[in-house]
């Protein structure tokens, strides 16, 4: 196939994501300024960053799962459940915080384990496995919780309300998780194996990798990060809520952020950095539209269009193209070489 070596061709997809983010930033600054607001004021920055935290946690986990060749649609329900367990166990008592956090993340991990086992051992496509597990949790939530539940104590609520300058603590924790995830991906064996399994299971297997391990690990971490998101929400809301996860639409939005960040939906290629870029784009977009008081229905239109358009920028590009030997259009200098006829050997 022919390829053009344009500007975009030379950039990695992560670079393009940040380029798109930059464009969004500039556009946002202009638009927001035009109505007499500041895009870069501490309040606004804090608002944008707050917007990145919850989705950030989930999208990091989703990145791992997608890299491993799976998908996690159960995250919203895990997040809701986590918020309920956290607030329920804490019951407004600061002494319970540690046990609540552990129990919450432990439960999330168990759900992730279930997801991972269904995908890896029962050979169920991640889409269906996690849709199913999500539905199972959803039924449990709907049956047992009708409205918010529990109460998180002041000390714990501070996590969601404190910041260093305009940077919320929650964002810092999220970025720390991102750092850990990067460390995992790039500096541990299981991280390398995760890329391998997502890239080609057969290759991974014959290279001596136990292919279940990375898939299950990714699912467990993803659920735990969804649990983290639940904890953060419990801290911000002060209570647990059975619907807080689905309210955010975090399943599809996180997948969109991951793909926007340049990760291949089919797995094996992508970065956490890119995903953070994707999350940032969404957060800025939401912020700009809210400041501009865009009709809430139109917000979704913009989101939808941006998701597709941004991915389209690099989707068509072959990631690594073979260098062309000849200018495709043919220059005057390239004289047609005459094949020679040789007599015998």
């Amino acid at each position: 196939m022919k390829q053009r070596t344009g500007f975009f061709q030379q950039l990695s997809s992560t670079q393009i994501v940040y380029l798109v983010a930059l464009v969004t930033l500039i556009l946002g600054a202009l638009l927001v300024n035009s109505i007499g607001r500041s895009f870069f004021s501490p309040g606004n920055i804090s608002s944008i960053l707050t917007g990145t935290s919850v989705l950030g946690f989930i999208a990091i986990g989703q990145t791992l799962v997608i890299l491993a060749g799976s998908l996690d649609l159960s995250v919203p329900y895990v997040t809701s459940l986590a918020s309920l367990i956290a607030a329920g166990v804490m019951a407004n008592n600061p002494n319970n915080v540690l046990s609540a956090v552990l129990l919450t993340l432990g439960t999330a991990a168990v759900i992730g384990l279930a997801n991972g086992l269904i995908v890896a051992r029962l050979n169920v496509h991640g889409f269906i496995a996690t849709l199913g597990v999500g539905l199972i949790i959803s039924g449990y939530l709907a049956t047992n919780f009708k409205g918010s539940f529990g109460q998180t104590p002041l000390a714990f609520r501070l996590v969601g309300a404190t910041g260093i300058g305009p940077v919320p603590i929650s964002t810092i924790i999220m970025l720390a998780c991102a750092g850990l995830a990067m460390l995992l991906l790039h500096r541990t064996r299981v991280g390398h194996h995760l890329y391998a399994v997502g890239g080609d299971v057969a290759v991974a297997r014959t290279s001596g990798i136990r292919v279940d391990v990375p898939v299950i690990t990714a699912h467990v971490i993803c659920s735990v990060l969804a649990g983290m998101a639940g904890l953060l929400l419990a801290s911000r809301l002060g209570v647990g809520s059975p619907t807080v996860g689905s309210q955010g639409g975090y399943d599809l939005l996180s997948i969109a952020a991951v793909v926007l960040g340049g990760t291949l939906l089919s797995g094996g290629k992508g970065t956490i950095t890119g995903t953070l870029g994707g999350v940032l784009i969404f957060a800025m977009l939401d912020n700009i539209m809210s400041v501009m008081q865009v009709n809430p229905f139109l917000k979704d239109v913009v989101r939808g269009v941006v998701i597709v358009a941004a991915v389209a920028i690099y989707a068509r590009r072959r990631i690594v193209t073979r260098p062309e030997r000849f200018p495709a259009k043919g220059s005057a200098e390239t004289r047609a070489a005459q094949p020679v006829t040789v007599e015998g050997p």
Partner: protein
Amino acid sequence: ACTTTDPSVTQTSGTGTGSAAASSPASKDWFDQTLYDTQNQQRSATFEGNPEQPYLQYIAGPMTDTSKFKAPGAHKVCFANASISNPWRQTGWITMNQQLKALQGTGVISEMETRDAKDNDNTQIADIDYFIAEGKCDAFVISPNSTAALTQAVERACQTGKPVVVFDRGVQTDCATTFIHPIGGFAWGIDTATFISDKLQSGDKVVALRILPGVDVLEHRWAAAKKIFEEKGIQAKDYFTNADPTEIKKIISDELATGDVKGVWMDAGDGAVAALEAFEDAGKKLPVMTGEDEMSFLTKWKQTGIDAMAPVYSNFQWRTPLLALEKIFKGEPIPTEWVLPQKPILADELDQWLQRNQGMPSGHYAKFGGEDLAGYPEVWQQRQIP
């Protein structure tokens, strides 16, 4: 670096004006006897003010002194809205905007900045925090997405020292300048369940169609109705439908297949028509029914002549917050808890309400209370949403 903690993130005071039951687990009932009794009495209470302007009426009670807010000139209002994701909210939102224009015209309000949280607690918390930090707001109007989760954000708004008006769903704090709402869900439940029970026999089956779980004003409706049905020996089976008529129709069809359904109770009238059509299609006798003052239901009620009533969760409450702010900026005292009238539409008034709302779309609410505003009726007919 400097640590910035929101000074207002504090131990919550506990009981608020919203609902005491809101943060309790599901196993604990939404039922609250005190609130039930209060609202039951309020059903027959007398309302202060001009009945021609129900959106300004209230039940006499404690008043908030607003003299400290008294200030001349036009003010900027910041409105944190839960969402406009259902027809009831959309109708109210349209009315509110027309009211806004009126108050802008009279120089009370300079502008209203609105953030819509799209049914998301976390977003609405962020919206309120954004207003506090960046909004340069002279007053806050908050329509909370959920009761417990928004409590602290509302408290933070209160701590700015600016007037805070909460309406529709409540929060668990008294800090707001006023909390505006119609009588409430228990009253709705009492009106409707009593109506149905009176027409039916003990042992009859009623299907209860509920939109969604977890919203106080809706849960209270069912909590009251359930209690009454139980007392009267009516068999009520409840379902969540998301107001999806397809779902509603299937539920009714299956229920009809397992036995006669004598009554249909709804916690919100959206989708009522589908429920009736299920009876028609199955060739069954139409039930005794309660819907809501949504045009689609009123029209169908009229067409079929069923035995019905339309409870009302007064949509005109969307005007009141801005009118309350007008009073606040004038320093006039206003009710601390502003209980608006909530009068169901009964069979004898049906024609009158249909008449008054001729030409309105099916998702319009008869008691929207905006007939005196500019733009009436086109704006509502065309559902122009800003």
